């Protein structure tokens, strides 16, 4: 029972991290029309930023604001220098542009920090577990991650759903021509969306660094699962991405935790075990075939 509870919390925490990555991805696709395969690399850069800052200053708390500021700056530069030339281009060009960025980011990481695994130290006063039931306790830092992600998600959803800029962004995702006709500077909207998306992915990386440690290509597997979140949540929908991220986080974590147990049964059990590690991909394929607008009322 207690392991189940801890897997449930792990799933929630993973889902919330996924939301930080997927919300940027869904906005960037919804508003800018860009398939950003380099979004996972931004997560990696955020995690390495946390590692470098923590190593230099000994403070993880400094790493978070640094990752956010660095994220906004990187987002601004990438949008102005590269991405804005690709809004109207073919998917093929976007795929290649962002593939090139993955290679460049990973090589820069390798040149600057090297290829070793590094752990990121949790501050001493947070390095304890909170008892929940008699025999079960859960790491305090994981609660911090859950709390920080929830706070960021709340701010983001408020910004998108309740502010004027948010309304413009939602409008741009739905009918970009209309936004232009109304005399809104869409170039500024694009810049904002891209910078926010980049900063969110890097913040997720910085938050996750102490949990997973940092290693080469760490964003690669998260990229694809984030695309699953985007598709299931409905393209361009931030609140859809939120529910979908939590769903995917839970399915993936529980599937990986309990799936292998089926394999012991052999035969069909082995098939079930394999299916549980691919559960999220199967779900995405099912959604695409039967409900292509997403499970949470997104737009096509």
């Amino acid at each position: 029972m207690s392991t189940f509870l801890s897997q449930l919390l792990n799933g929630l925490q993973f889902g919330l991290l996924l939301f930080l990555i997927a919300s940027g991805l869904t906005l960037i696709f919804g508003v800018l029309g860009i398939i950003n395969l380099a979004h996972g690399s931004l997560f990696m850069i955020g995690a390495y930023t946390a590692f470098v800052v923590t190593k230099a200053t000994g403070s993880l708390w400094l790493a978070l604001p640094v990752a956010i500021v660095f994220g906004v700056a990187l987002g601004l530069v990438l949008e102005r220098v590269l991405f804005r030339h690709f809004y109207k281009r073919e998917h093929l060009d976007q795929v290649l542009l962002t593939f090139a960025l993955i290679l460049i980011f990973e090589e820069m990481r390798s040149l600057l920090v090297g290829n070793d695994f590094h752990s990121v130290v949790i501050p001493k006063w947070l390095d304890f577990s909170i008892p929940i039931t008699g025999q079960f306790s859960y790491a305090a830092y994981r609660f911090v991650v859950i709390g920080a992600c929830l706070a960021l998600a709340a701010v983001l959803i408020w910004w998108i759903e309740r502010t004027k800029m948010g309304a413009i962004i939602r409008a741009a995702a739905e009918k970009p021509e209309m936004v232009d006709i109304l005399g809104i500077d869409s170039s500024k909207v694009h810049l904002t969306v891209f910078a926010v998306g980049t900063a969110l992915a890097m913040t997720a990386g910085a938050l996750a660094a102490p949990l997973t440690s940092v290693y080469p290509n760490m964003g690669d597997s998260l990229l694809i699962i984030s695309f699953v979140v985007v598709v299931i949540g409905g393209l361009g929908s931030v609140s859809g991405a939120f529910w979908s991220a939590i769903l995917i986080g839970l399915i993936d974590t529980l599937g990986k935790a309990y799936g292998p147990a089926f394999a012991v049964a052999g035969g069909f059990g082995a098939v079930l075990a394999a299916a549980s590690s691919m559960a999220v991909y199967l779900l995405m394929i099912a959604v695409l075939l039967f409900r292509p607008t997403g499970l949470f009322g997104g737009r096509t």
Partner: protein
Amino acid sequence: MTTHRMLPQSAAAWTRLAALVVALTLLPFFTSAYYVGLVTTAMIGGMLALSMHLLVGATGLVSLGHGAFYGLAAYVVYLVTPVDTPMPMWLTLPLAMLVAGLVALVVGALSLRTTGFFFLMVTLAFGQMIYFVFHDTKLGGGTDGAYLAKPLLSAFGYTLDPKDFPRARRGWPPYYVALGQLVVTYLTLAFLLRSLFGRVLEGIKVNEHRMIAMGFNTNRYKLAAFVIAAMLASSAGHMLAMQTGFVNPDLVSWHKSAEALLMILLGGIGSLTGAVVGAFAYYALGEGAQVLGSYVVAWGFPRIGTILAERKLLVEGLVILAVVLVARNGLTGIKLRSPGLAKPSGNVHDIGNMGGVDP
């Protein structure tokens, strides 16, 4: 019937291609074992890029799961080969192509119900599932990969075994098998593109609704293209297993699909020859960077030189950036920018309408 826009446009262009094949046939006599191996790898890359081109260039479908069929074929060879017992190529090649074709039939039937962004994502998801099968289970050696006994070419009771060759010439049998397969792949595609099948694909690329209105079941044509492309990719993957005798999950990852797209873009998306030129350029790039790097070190810039020589992927990334930003039509497209011709736009479909784009 006029020729297809992706094929050589004149007898002279065909002759140049034939001359290239003759040059490749003679190459091993004039170069070292290292370059024989490198050119073999490039020819396998050329086969993969050609197979991808049936989807991207001819039909206008960008699949990120295509590389999975390439890797899958190599794994099929691994799975059917008993330890230390080489199997005849006549058995492993059809088997690998059959397995890839059947998987592609299922994957294609489901994926082709979507278009655009969604098609990219479904093919990516399917490719990733195939990746997980080999990455997460012990079926094919897991994350570390596994060695296999390379399939052998045998005919009329005689077996072409690299072990019977002097050490410096062991790369020759796979080289010539790869060259043969490359030529066959090219001719197969040329034949397909010139047939009604190729014309329908062309129509789908330019305007699918019009083709539906004309009474073509376009889904069936797209599915056929998807399956044929996967089978051709699997012949490339089989050839790779034959050359290296090694499989690992990287072969199945979506990066392979991206590499194939890069080769196509490098060589020029307008022609079949472009895919092969692009594959050669792709491998020459790594070599070139290394050679250039050693010169830069000699000129007194050791740091920059070492980066150039040792950071193949960085150079690759920067070259892709340059190509997507500047030379949109690739190497074979550069010649086209003479004043007499319309400046190619950034839109693939426009290129489709422009007519001949061939070296």
